[in-house]
């Protein structure tokens, strides 16, 4: 098995006729993902990707006609939160929002409505997820992956590719790679994904790739310390040399309780028994050292 996406994924792409939406839908389809529908209001009845995917006016239509259960949102920032809510309203349970540049305050009600509906939002401003050999949703290049049993979760885009490529080069495959996105307000956190990996029988080891800022890595570490002691884990934190955060002022420092620096994150993860890499290329060796034999 895999988490979030797999062979049972029936994907609807919101914004499929846009430049990015079309390009990546083709990549997903070529990777083997079941891209069953696209949505562009006003283009219902047409098809996309050389006639391979029907286009609908609404997600509700797409779900009714194609049984879509997962959505990937490429809609521009101004309309993306509404697109996410449309997916939720149509009964989609897993939504990837690739769109970047969504104002943070727009996401507060959005993630709350998603949560109340019992659905799951990954992102926004995330690269998506890949379950190698099964499906990929989003913009992660399919070529970097290898089928396997290591779960990867990351806040970054290209940094994830770097780490995954290093694993693949070392012969270590992945069960699922999830990019949760780097925005202040996101739908799915490190902790959420760790819990999914913990429940997935095919995931035997976990790689966590974090960044300075916020306290999501520390929260994940605290949970891992309690629940993932037997699981081989490696992690990398970007930003050890980065200058002090430019976004948050006094209140930011207060709210995080002084947390958020790379040193503190590294300490929290090490305390949880997770091996820390000083370069993404070290990850494969650390997984082996942690006892991973996959």
């Amino acid at each position, binding site marked *: 098995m895999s988490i979030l996406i797999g062979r049972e994924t029936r994907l609807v792409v919101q914004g499929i006729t846009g430049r990015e939406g079309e390009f990546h839908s083709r990549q997903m389809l070529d990777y083997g993902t079941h891209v069953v529908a696209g949505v562009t209001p006003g283009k219902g009845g047409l098809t996309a990707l050389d006639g391979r995917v029907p286009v609908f006016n609404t997600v509700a239509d797409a779900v009714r006609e194609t049984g879509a259960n997962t959505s990937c949102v490429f809609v521009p920032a101004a309309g993306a939160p509404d697109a996410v809510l449309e997916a939720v309203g149509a009964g989609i349970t897993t939504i990837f929002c690739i769109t970047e540049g969504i104002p943070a305050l727009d996401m507060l009600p959005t993630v709350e409505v998603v949560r109340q509906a019992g659905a799951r939002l990954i992102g926004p401003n995330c690269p998506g997820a890949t379950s190698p050999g099964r499906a990929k949703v989003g913009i992660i290049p399919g070529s970097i992956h290898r089928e396997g049993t290591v779960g990867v979760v990351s806040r*970054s885009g290209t940094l994830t590719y770097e780490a995954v490529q290093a694993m693949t080069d070392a012969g270590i495959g992945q069960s699922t790679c999830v990019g949760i996105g780097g925005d202040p*307000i996101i739908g799915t956190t490190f902790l959420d994904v760790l819990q999914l990996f913990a429940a997935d029988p095919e995931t035997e080891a976990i790689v966590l790739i974090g960044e300075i800022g916020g306290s999501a890595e520390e929260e994940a570490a605290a949970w891992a310390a309690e629940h993932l002691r037997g699981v081989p884990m490696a992690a990398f934190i970007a930003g050890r040399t980065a200058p002090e955060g430019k976004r948050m002022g006094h209140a930011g420092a207060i709210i995080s309780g002084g947390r958020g620096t790379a040193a503190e994150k590294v300490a929290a993860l090490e305390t949880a028994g997770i091996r820390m890499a000083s370069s993404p290329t070290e990850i494969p060796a650390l997984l082996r050292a942690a006892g991973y034999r996959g």
Partner: protein
Amino acid sequence: MKIQEADAKSLLLTQGLPIPDWSVARTPAEARTAAERFFAAGAGSVVIKAQVLVGGRGKAGGVKLAATANEAEAVAERILGLSIKGIPVRKVLVAAAAVIVKEYYLGAILDRASRRIVVMASAEGGVEIEEVARATPEAIHRASAHPLLGLFDYQARELAFAVGLGPHLKSFVRIAKGLVATMKVNDADLVEVNPLAIVRETGPEGPVERLVCLDAKITLDDSALVRHPGLEEMRDLDEEDPADAEARHHDISFIHLDGTIGCMVNGAGLAMTTMDLVKRAGGEPANFLDIGGGAKADRVAAAMRLILADSKVDAILVNIFGGITRGDEVARGLIEARARQSREVPMVVRIVGTNAEEAAHLLRKANFETAASLDEAAEKAVAAARAVATEATSAATPATGGAA
């Protein structure tokens, strides 16, 4: 984006918050005129505050009182001559000095962990609030605003009673809700009033005490500026590095640092990692630079100009993991940029992912130094910078010696 105190106060005023009148002056003469106005209205003295976007202006001598218009002019002249943390003071705010009975802290912030706007209040106002958070965290009271409905009145009342502002209940509730409204209306990440103060004023029937916002600090969400053209105008170009403006213009995320190795990377996480590896290899990054996703040749050229504009840069490290971004596009941009660049700096290029082979071919043809892994790229760049520095030192030493 940070905005100046005066602009922050304007935004709070728009939400109906109680803020004593103020003026902004760019010259001592303007400060004098402003001070005269406040004295004429009955002020005992005026306060003159440097308008800079960095903290610690009080300690740096950027906040002073003046008892006469003459003194105000002199004080303004001194403050306008200051540089605070490297930023020259170009404006001062002038206001009647308040008679402060007690100071409080009140702030609203977007909290990532709870995905809520959190409002914080403390009876320990007017001081560094991080200090309070560290020394007596229990002195800071929090309320988590409803994600869909905002801060409820009762939550504001609870905060008011917690910090002992029961006697100013209605006013406090209005101000606390006004902070959250200010956040929402302007897409701010942070709205802080420190101090929120009870001041004594002379009303028509003798002295009265009221709650007012004596300072204001607002940080805006950059992602939302497109829908607030009025706020974009509050950007203080005076205080901005011209490089920042150019980076923004090209959708490049750029932060200037003190090192010698210029970095050009796609993706913020990878950019930070590249900096970390430069450091691990013994070098110092000259910047954080993320060209973003899907960058084309022109953006690459702009990034190169930004890096080279920093005279301290001795070597450049380009690290691209192609996904949306096409490696050949980047390579073409680099070749073009080098052809037109103002000075010669060693460059190490690593391009993997989408169209990496075509990129490699182009770079080979143009005689670029390349690297296969990020670790290798960092080491090569640091070595190149060291060579340049050594050369410069050996070149400089005799020259200096010769002049002596």
